[in-house]
């Protein structure tokens, strides 16, 4: 199986790759269109800000490529946010795969940093992961709970901790940094 971690010049591709290594997967880290099109599974990781990340994807013509992907794609943190219509961060038009907006978090301390519990788990990503397990979050923007939500979490207000639609998956937390539960989620994604 070929897993491609999409590189977009904002770091942390290595962390995702190291986590996949623990699952016995040796991913390709690339922003090359042919590599991306030949992948069985794709991961769009996330450190960066929405504006510079979208600009990079556009410069490499990856925005169109990602929209047309038919195999499973997992967006992590910013990667999940980029799958939505629009982000308030840098006033950015995103990929539009999920008809929802990404908004600045308003309640509690922001950024929302640390381990938080995930609930209302739905779909194959959370197979064998129990309700209320802890995942690691580090973000200032979030997607409100909507019909795509595959998991939710609370930071005074409830937000989408994961979303899913067809072959597109997104998680607001960092499974690559969330210990054994995070690895289990990545394993579920790889096993789709």
């Amino acid at each position, binding site marked *: 199986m070929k897993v491609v971690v999409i590189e977009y010049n904002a770091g942390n591709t290595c962390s995702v790759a*190291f986590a996949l290594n623990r699952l016995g997967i040796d991913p390709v880290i690339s922003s090359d269109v042919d590599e991306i099109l030949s992948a069985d599974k794709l991961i769009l990781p996330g450190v960066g800000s929405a504006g510079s990340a979208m600009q990079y994807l556009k410069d490499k013509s990856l925005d169109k490529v990602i929209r047309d992907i038919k195999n499973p794609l997992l967006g992590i943190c910013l990667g999940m946010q980029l799958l939505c219509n629009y982000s308030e961060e840098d006033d950015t038009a995103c990929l539009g795969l999920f008809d929802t907006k990404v908004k600045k978090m308003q309640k509690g301390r922001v950024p929302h940093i640390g381990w938080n519990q995930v609930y209302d788990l739905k779909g194959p990503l959370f197979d064998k992961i129990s309700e209320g397990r802890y995942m690691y979050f580090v973000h200032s923007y979030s997607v409100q709970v909507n019909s795509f939500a595959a998991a939710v979490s609370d930071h005074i207000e409830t937000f989408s901790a994961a979303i899913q639609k067809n072959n597109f998956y997104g998680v607001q937390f960092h499974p690559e940094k969330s210990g054994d539960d995070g690895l289990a989620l990545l394993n579920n994604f790889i096993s789709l």
Partner: protein
Amino acid sequence: MPLTKRIIPCLDIKNGKVVKGTAFVNLKDMGDPVELACRYTQEGADELVLLDITATLEDRKAFLPLIRNVAKNVTIPFTVGGGINCIEDAYLLLCAGADKISVNSAAVNDPGLITELAKRFGSQCVVLAIDAKWKDDSYQVYINGGKKATSINVLEWAGQGEDKGAGEMLLTSIDQDGARNGFALSLIKEVSKKVNVPVIASGGAGKAEHFAEVLADGYADAALAAGIFHVGLVDIKELKNYLNNINIHVRI
């Protein structure tokens, strides 16, 4: 349930080894960084902080592969600091597997660095480390590993740092560092009130009760310690069970 409070062991790294001193001096060898990082991950640490305290450029070259090696071996997030002066320094560390980067002296010398880093990597990635020392009836910012006074007021600098885009404050009391007689509670409380980003308290942890004090409502979101974990004076697993039993929400 609210967000959990975090317990963060800190690894000061010099010449490839973890070291620890008192009030920033008298450094002692505490072992291998990767081994310690793995041990703390297994014991239930929520995050790690790794600080490069080497002085020479030559030694710094060895730091990146070390960070890569830590990232390969641990499954929890970690922040890296020490000697980050530009976007490129930060980018290389993030690429090596760091999750957040912390800036200290370089940000005091050029506060615009905070904004540049936040624009490129997002505020959530940028930790402003502030070393505070009580002097002339106020807490003042010290730089260059606690050696140089700046006469900048800590509260003002924390507020300015947040405005510039820092996503978290790592607040160390130089007076308390290594003394093991408790965190600088008034300092932590004031900064915590001043900023809306999470505050990590550092300096002074000696026993479990000190963590309970500093993680109470209105104080810190996370507590950092080094020596007491390295020498086994406080066990992270026992500490978290203790906090959980007194209703401080932690990840068990």
